[in-house]
C-alpha cells in the first residue's frame, strides 16, 4: 500500500468515526458507539504501525514520508499545504496517540456505559484523535496550529461534556480561553518566523535555523521561540497558564487520561522537540524553558501533596511531570524529553484510568478521604495502579526511572543545565514520591473509610484489559531508552534504542561532552535515595500513623491551607486580571459608549435643535413682523449698495 493511502486511512477513520457517532448521537448503546469509536482508532493505530514499519525499512537519514493533499492557502509568498510529514519523531508520537488512545477508547466503553450521551462522547473522542494526528503530522506550523486549536476544541467539548453542571461547563470554557492565550502567543511566534524566514514549513524552518547561537534576548529566533513556547505553556499547562488543567478534571475520567495526561498536554513538548534546531539556536529561550519547567515541577508537586480529589492529585502530578519534560527540553535533552513524554503517557494514562476504575467502583466518589483499603475490593485496579506508582516515583527498573533520571542528569550535566535546576528537579521527585505514595495509601491501603452504603466493586474486563496493557508498558516502556551508564553494567550492553532512532533529526546542544560516570551514579543514587525516604515517610504517616499527619497539618495550618488552596493562584488571576478586565469593560461600555460617544452625538443634535429653535422664533406667524424683516432687509441691502 502506498503511503498516501495509509495516511488517508489514518486520518479518515477517526474522522468517519466522529461523523458516524455524531449522527447517531441520540443512540444510547455504549457497545455500538464504543465499537465504532474504538475501531476507528484501532484502524488508525494499525496505519501508524504500518507507517512505522515502512520507516524502519528506509535508510536512517532518509526516514521520512511526506504526503501532500494539496494547497490550503497560497498567497504571495505564503504557501501552506495540507501536507503531512512522517518521520522518526511523528511516527512514534502517532503510535503513542493511537495506541494509548485505543486503550482509552476501550476503557471508555465500560466507563461510559451508563451515560446517555455515549455516542456523542465517542464522537468527540474520535474528533480529538483526528486533530491530534493533524497536530503531530502537520508539515507546517499552520497545519500544526490547526490540530493545536482542534485538540483545544475537543478538550473544550469533552471537559464540558456534562454541561448541565455549570461548573463543568465553566471548566471547559476556562480551558479554552486559557489555551487561547497561549495560542495567541503561538500565532505571534509563527508571524515572527514567517516574516524573517519567509516560510512556515517546519522542515524548512529547521534547516534555516542559524548555526550561530543567538545571545541577545531580542533576536529573531529567540523572540520567535519564546512566543512559541508561550503557546506551549498554554497547551501543556506550565506556569503561568497551568491553571486550566486541574479544572479540566471536570470531564469524564478517560478524557482526563487521554487528553489531559497522555497526549494533548504533551503537544507543547512535541512542538519544541519538533523544532529543536530552532530552540537550540536560542539559548535564552532554552534557559526560560528550563527555569519554567523546573519551577512548574516543584510548584505543581507541592500543590499535589495537599489535594484530596483523586483526579486533582493526578492532574497536578501531570503538570509537574510536564514540567520535567520542559526542563529536559530547556537543557537540550530533546530525546529525553520525548522519552519522558512516552513513559509518562503510559504510566499517567494508566493511573488516570485506574482512578477512573476506582471512581467507577465507588460510584462517582472522588474524595480520597472517603476511600482507603480499596485494595481488597479492587485487586486488579490496585495492582495495575501500583505499577504506575512505582513508575512515577522512579523505582529503578520501571519506565519512569529511566526517563526521569536521564532528565535530572542532563539538567545537571548539559552545558545548558545548572545545578540549581537539578536541585529543583530532585525536590520535585521527592515530592512526587511523597504525594503519590500518599495517594496510594489513602486510596488503596490503610483502613477503609468508605461509607457503609457504598459497595465498591471491581470494573469489568473491558476496563481492566487497558489497565493491564498500560501497566505492562509502564514497567517495560523504559527499556527503549536505557541511559548509557546503566547499559554499561547490564549484560549485553543494550543500546539506547530511542536515541539511536532519533539520531538524524534531533540535534544535541553544542558543547555536550561525556559526563563523569561517578558523578552520574552519585546523583542518581541521591535522587533515588531521597525518593525512597519520602516514600517511606509518606507510608509511615498515612498508613501507620495517621494521627501524626493530622497533628502536623494542624501545626502548620496556614501553610497547609495555602497549599491546599493552590497558593490562591486562581483567586489572584481572577482578582488581578479577569475581574478588572470585566469591570473595565463594564466601565468602557457605560462611560465611553453610553456617556461619552452617545452624549457627544446628542450634543451635536442639541446644538442643531437649539439653533433651529432660535431661527424658528423668528418665524412667529405675524404678517407684520415678516413685512418688517422685508423692510429691514431692504434698508440694509440698499445701504450696502449705496455705501460701496
Amino acid at each position, binding site marked *: 500500500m502506498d503511503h498516501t493511502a495509509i495516511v488517508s486511512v489514518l486520518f479518515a477513520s477517526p474522522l468517519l468515526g466522529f461523523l458516524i457517532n455524531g449522527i447517531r448521537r441520540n443512540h444510547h448503546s455504549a457497545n455500538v458507539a464504543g465499537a465504532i469509536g474504538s475501531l476507528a482508532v484501532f484502524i488508525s493505530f494499525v496505519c501508524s504501525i504500518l507507517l512505522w514499519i515502512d520507516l524502519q525499512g528506509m535508510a536512517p537519514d532518509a526516514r521520512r514520508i511526506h504526503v501532500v493533499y494539496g*494547497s490550503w*492557502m497560497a*498567497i504571495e509568498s505564503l504557501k501552506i499545504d495540507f501536507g503531512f510529514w512522517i518521520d522518526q519523531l511523528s511516527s512514534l508520537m502517532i503510535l503513542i496517540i493511537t495506541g494509548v488512545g485505543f486503550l482509552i477508547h476501550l476503557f471508555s466503553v465500560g466507563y461510559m456505559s451508563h451515560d446517555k450521551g455515549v455516542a456523542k462522547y465517542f464522537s468527540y473522542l474520535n474528533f480529538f484523535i483526528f486533530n491530534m494526528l493533524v497536530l503531530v503530522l502537520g508539515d507546517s506550523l499552520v497545519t500544526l496550529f490547526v490540530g493545536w486549536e482542534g485538540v483545544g476544541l475537543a478538550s473544550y467539548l469533552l471537559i464540558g461534556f456534562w454541561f448541565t453542571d455549570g461548573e463543568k461547563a465553566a471548566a*471547559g470554557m476556562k480551558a479554552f480561553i486559557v489555551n487561547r492565550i497561549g495560542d495567541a502567543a503561538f500565532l*505571534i511566534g509563527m508571524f515572527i518566523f514567517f516574516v524573517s524566514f519567509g516560510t512556515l514549513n517546519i522542515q524548512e524552518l529547521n534547516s534555516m535555523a542559524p548555526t550561530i547561537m543567538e545571545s541577545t534576548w531580542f533576536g529573531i529566533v529567540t523572540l520567535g521561540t519564546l512566543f512559541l513556547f508561550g503557546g506551549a505553556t498554554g497547551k501543556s499547562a506550565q506556569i503561568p497558564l497551568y491553571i486550566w488543567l486541574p479544572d479540566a478534571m471536570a470531564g469524564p475520567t478517560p478524557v482526563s487520561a487521554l487528553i489531559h495526561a497522555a497526549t494533548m498536554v504533551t503537544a507543547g513538548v512535541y512542538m519544541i522537540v519538533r523544532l529543536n534546531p530552532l530552540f537550540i539556536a536560542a539559548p535564552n529561550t532554552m534557559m526560560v524553558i528550563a527555569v519554567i519547567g523546573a519551577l512548574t515541577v516543584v510548584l505543581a508537586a507541592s500543590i499535589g501533596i495537599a489535594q484530596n480529589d483523586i483526579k486533582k492529585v493526578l492532574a497536578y502530578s501531570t503538570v509537574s511531570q510536564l514540567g520535567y519534560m520542559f526542563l529536559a527540553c530547556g537543557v537540550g535533552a530533546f530525546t529525553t524529553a520525548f522519552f519522558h513524554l512516552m513513559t509518562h503517557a503510559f504510566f499517567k494514562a494508566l493511573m488516570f484510568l485506574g482512578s477512573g476504575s476506582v471512581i467507577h467502583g465507588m460510584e462517582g466518589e472522588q474524595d480520597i478521604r472517603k476511600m482507603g483499603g480499596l485494595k481488597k475490593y479492587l485487586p486488579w485496579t490496585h495492582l495495575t495502579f501500583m505499577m504506575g506508582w512505582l513508575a512515577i516515583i522512579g523505582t529503578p527498573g520501571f519506565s519512569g526511572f529511566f526517563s526521569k533520571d536521564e532528565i535530572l542528569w542532563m539538567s545537571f550535566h548539559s552545558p545548558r543545565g545548572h545545578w540549581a535546576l537539578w536541585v529543583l528537579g530532585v525536590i520535585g521527585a521527592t515530592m512526587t514520591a511523597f504525594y503519590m505514595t500518599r495517594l496510594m495509601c489513602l486510596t488503596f491501603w490503610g483502613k477503609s473509610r468508605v461509607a457503609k452504603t457504598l459497595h465498591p466493586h471491581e470494573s469489568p474486563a473491558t476496563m481492566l484489559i487497558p489497565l493491564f496493557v498500560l501497566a505492562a508498558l509502564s514497567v517495560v516502556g523504559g527499556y527503549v531508552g536505557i541511559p548509557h551508564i546503566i547499559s554499561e553494567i547490564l549484560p549485553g550492553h543494550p543500546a539506547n534504542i530511542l536515541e539511536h532512532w532519533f539520531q538524524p533529526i534531533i540535534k544535541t546542544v553544542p558543547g555536550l561532552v561525556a559526563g563523569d560516570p561517578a558523578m552520574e551514579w552519585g546523583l542518581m543514587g541521591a535522587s533515588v535515595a531521597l525518593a525512597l525516604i519520602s516514600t517511606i515517610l509518606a507510608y509511615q504517616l498515612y498508613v501507620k500513623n495517621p494521627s501524626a499527619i493530622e497533628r502536623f497539618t494542624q501545626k502548620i495550618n496556614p501553610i497547609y491551607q495555602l497549599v491546599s488552596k493552590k497558593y490562591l493562584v486562581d483567586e489572584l488571576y481572577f482578582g488581578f486580571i479577569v475581574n478588572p478586565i470585566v469591570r473595565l469593560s463594564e466601565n468602557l461600555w457605560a462611560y465611553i459608549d453610553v456617556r461619552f*460617544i452617545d452624549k457627544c*452625538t446628542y450634543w451635536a443634535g442639541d446644538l442643531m435643535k437649539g439653533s433651529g429653535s432660535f431661527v424658528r422664533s423668528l418665524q412667529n406667524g405675524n404678517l407684520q413682523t415678516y413685512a418688517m424683516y422685508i423692510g429691514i432687509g431692504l434698508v440694509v441691502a440698499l445701504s450696502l449698495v449705496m455705501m460701496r
Partner: protein
Amino acid sequence: MILSTLIFLPVLFAIVIALWPQKSTIRPIALGFSIAHFIFGLTLFREFDPNIADLQLVEKYMWMERFGIQYFLGIDGISFWLIQLTVFLAPLILLASWKSIDKNIRGFHICFFILQTAMLGTFLAFDAILFYVFWELSLIPMYFMIGIWGGARRIYATLKFFIFTMAGSLLMLVAIIYMMFLTQQAFGTMSSSLLDFYKLSIPFIGHEFFSMQTLLFFAFALAFAVKVPLFPLHTWLPDAHVEAPTPGSVVLAGVMLKMGTYCYLRWVLPLFPEATEYWAWIFIMLGVIGIIYGALVAMVQPDIKKLVAYSSVSHMGYIIVGIFVFNHLSLQGSLYQMLNHGISTGALFILIGMLYERTHSREIKHYGGLASALPIYTIFFFIVTFSSIAVPLTNGFVGEFLILLGTYKAIPMAAIFSVTGVVLGAAYMLWMCKRVFFGEKGPLVADAHHPLVDLNAREIVILVPFVIMIFIMGLFPNVFLKWSEASVDYLIKNKANYELTIKGAK
C-alpha cells in the same frame, strides 16, 4: 447588460410584488425571485475573468452630459465576492423572515428588494454620482426596515442609524463635487467617472492638515468609517442591530457594513495614495482599538444580539487594520474577512432571531441549559460560534490569520495588540455560550407551559448553507482568493498611481 440586470432585477421584483394580487403568496414568490436572482448572479462566474485586473463587464452611458455624469458600471476582483455574498444571503434572509415578519409583508419585501438594488449598485457603480445615489438609496429601505418592523426602541435606533450615516456621507458628497471640478480643471470637461478621478493627481502636503488631498481623504474616509463602523463612530450599530428585525440585522451586518470597507478599497486607497499612507496610522490605531474595545464591551453585554453587534465592531476592526496595513496578505485577508463576517455574523443573527421567535427574549440571564432543550439548535450555534472565533478549518481562521500575518509583516506592534482580540473573542463568545446553553436551566428554558421546540425543516434549510460555506471557506480558501488575486495584486503594485483599464478597451 449583466450588471444592469443584476442591479435592477430586484426593482422589477419589487414592482411585481407591489402589484401582486394575493397577499398569501407573496413570501414564496419573493423567495423564488431571490433564488432566481442568486442563480443569475452565478453567471458572473462564467463571464468574469479572474486572471486580469481590468474592469470587466463594463456598461457606460452618458447620463447628464453637462456635468459628465455617467451611468457607469463595472466589476473587478475586489467587488466580485461581495456581489456573490449579497445575492447569496438574500434567499436565506427571506426564508428567515418567514415567521418573524408578520405585519405588512408586501412592504417588507419591497423594501428588501430595493435594498438589494442599492447595495449591488454601490458595489458596482464606477461613477461618483451614481455611486452616491446608490449609497444613499441603501439607507432608505433600511430606515424603514428598522422603523417599521423593529423592536421597542426602533424609532430611536433608526433615527440614530440614519443620522450617523447621513452626516458622514454629506461630507463625501462635497468631496465628490469638488473632485468633479478638479477633473474639469485637469481635463477640460467635467466628469464624475471614477476612472477619471483615478487619473487626477491631487497635491499632497504631508504635515499640513488643510491641504487638498488630506481634506478630500478625510471627507471620504469619515463617510465610510461611519458605515464600517470604526471606533468611535460605532454607537449606532448596537442600537440598530438590537432594534432591527432579524432580516434587517442580517443585511446590516452581512452586507451593509462591507459597503464601508469595500469603499475604502475602491475609493480611498487608490484616489488618495499619499494621504492614505500618511494617515494610515490613525486608522490602524482606531482599528486595533476597535478590535479590543469591541471585544471588551461585547463581553459585558446583557443582550445576546447586542453582544454580537459589538463583536461586529471587533471583527470590522480587523478588516480596517488589514486594509490600511496595505500589503498583499492583509488585503486578501481583509477581503476574505468581509465574506467571513457576512456569513458568520449573518448566521449568528439568524440564529438569535430563531431563539427570539421562541422565547421573545434576548437577555442572557434568562437563559441557561438551552443545550439540552434545543440540541440541534445548539449544534448549529456552536459551529457558527467557532467560525466567529476563528477556529482553524472554519472560514474565520483564514481571514484573521492572513490579516494578522500581513499586519505583523508591516507593523508588528499592531499585530501583537490585535492578537488579543483572538483571546477576547473566544472569551466573550464562549462565556455567552456557557451562560445560554450550559448549566442549570434558566427561567425561559425551564418554563413548562411553553416547551421550546427544536429547529424545524425550514430553519435547518436556512442554516445548512451557512455551515457549508463556513467549512468550504475554511478548507479551500484558494478557490475564493483566486478571484480577487489579480485585482489585489494590481492594487498593491500600482498603489502610487492606480488606474484601472476597461477590459477590451485599448
